[in-house]
């Protein structure tokens, strides 16, 4: 086993254990999105009567949202964990070892991957048990889980970047409203074509979250729409690449500082 693999493995193990040992991270990430799903699917049921609404089940339409909310929680969790490592001096101690920066960041995302898997499986299971449809079948369920984890990791890299730049858990927590705005100013509640307010339609149309939601919805409502799926995965990859590049640069700066 190469030194690089060993380093990633050790940090990944620590990251996963730390995530699993913090119910305070896992429980809100599971409960809060499901609560909003229940409330919104009940309260906005009438939206399915609007001409052009893509499905007769608002629950199916809304089921895409928890996957995105779960990804936003991963920003907080991954970022807060790293910020604590900085605050407690753990990162400084790691800097004295021959650990590579890429190994550190990769290992730290392992917790986000595990949490992403748990979240995706839970949301999908609860949604289907509550009566949501899954047009793409079993294969679609697997792709939903993979897409969900990809987005979770992508947003997790942004959390790492904020943690490395700021060095405080409080600053990472302060980013939550910003990411929440991204979600609410998207096609979260209605399809893009049914957004009547002009400026809101414009904002939602350029908000990448709208297309991530659409990738989930394509599997839930339409079946297999390769174009929308490819766009969803491409956006997740782009966010992940930007986040990882920024985090790597921030890590170099932080290690130079220490």
């Amino acid at each position, binding site marked *: 086993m190469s030194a690089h693999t060993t380093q990633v493995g050790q940090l990944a193990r620590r990251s996963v254990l730390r995530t699993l040992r913090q119910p305070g991270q896992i429980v809100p990430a599971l409960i809060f999105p499901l609560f909003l799903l229940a*409330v919104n699917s*009940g*309260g906005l049921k*009438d939206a399915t009567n609007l001409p052009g609404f893509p499905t007769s089940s608002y629950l199916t339409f809304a089921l895409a949202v928890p996957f995105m909310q779960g990804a936003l929680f991963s920003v907080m969790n991954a970022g807060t964990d790293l910020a604590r490592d900085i605050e407690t001096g753990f990162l400084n101690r790691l800097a004295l070892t021959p650990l590579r920066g890429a190994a550190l960041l990769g290992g730290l995302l392992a917790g986000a991957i595990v949490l992403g898997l748990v979240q995706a499986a839970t949301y999908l299971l609860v949604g289907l048990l509550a009566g949501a449809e899954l047009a793409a079948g079993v294969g679609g369920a697997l792709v939903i889980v993979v897409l969900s984890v990809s987005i979770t990791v992508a947003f997790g890299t942004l959390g790492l970047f904020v943690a490395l730049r700021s060095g405080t858990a409080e600053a990472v927590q302060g980013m939550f409203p910003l990411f929440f705005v991204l979600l609410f100013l998207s096609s979260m509640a209605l399809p893009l074509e049914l957004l009547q307010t002009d400026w*809101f339609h414009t904002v939602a149309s350029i908000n990448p979250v709208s297309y991530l939601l659409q990738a989930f919805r394509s599997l839930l409502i339409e079946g297999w729409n390769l174009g929308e799926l490819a766009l969803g995965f491409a956006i997740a990859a782009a966010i992940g690449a930007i986040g990882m590049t920024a985090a790597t640069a921030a890590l170099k700066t932080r290690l130079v500082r220490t």
Partner: protein
Amino acid sequence: MSRKVALAVAWRSIHIFLTNPAFLAPGILFPLFFFTAFAGGLSAISSAPGFDFPSGYTAFQFVFVLLQSAAFGGVFTGFGIARDFETGFAQRYLLAARDRRGIVAGYALAALARALITWTVLTAVALVAGMQVGGDGVELLGLYGLAVLVNLTATLWAAGVAMRVRSIQGGPLMQFPVFLILFLAPVYVPLDLLSGWIHAVASVNPVTALLEAGRGFISGDPTVVALAFAIAVALPLLFSLWARGGLRRAEAAG
């Protein structure tokens, strides 16, 4: 004496959040954000069959966001109380105040001041966004009167929690029940258009009457006014007992 204590506590709390953007901004930005997201993103819902609200969807959502900001003004004040206990400042209040009920009253005054600032900004933004107001001056007074009582209720609830937990870690406990009860009301459409479990829950949720009365006020068609004010007056009375219990716990803890 109690009045002096209340004014002193209120002045300090107001001064803290007015001079610290980290405390002031969330209280103003969150309601604006919810208003923008709901009124802007969901306006098509008003085209759904059976949706008939004369003042339009912006006014329909404004009432919800107004009451929500009233409630969260109280919750954010609860965070301040918890912080005061963590730093030991609240213990100094307890030592210095002859009538300690004045401490809670002071926090309540600060919460109201915080809410008034938020409502001013929110109302201005809503009017600029083209909100139609059908109600007259008295009816609007009724709407803001309900908001004041909701603010007081939430402050007493959050103060009760803060004085029991005496740590900012009690934040979710202050926040989540308020969030829950607000969103289990007819937020997006009128009660008649809800169905299933959410209709059953919203029908017995006291916030529903407050929302319906508020929406009646803003559209100039008052409805369930007596019930709404009975609830809005009863809730602070009930939660003043909760807050008083919290104060006693804090006194006992020293």
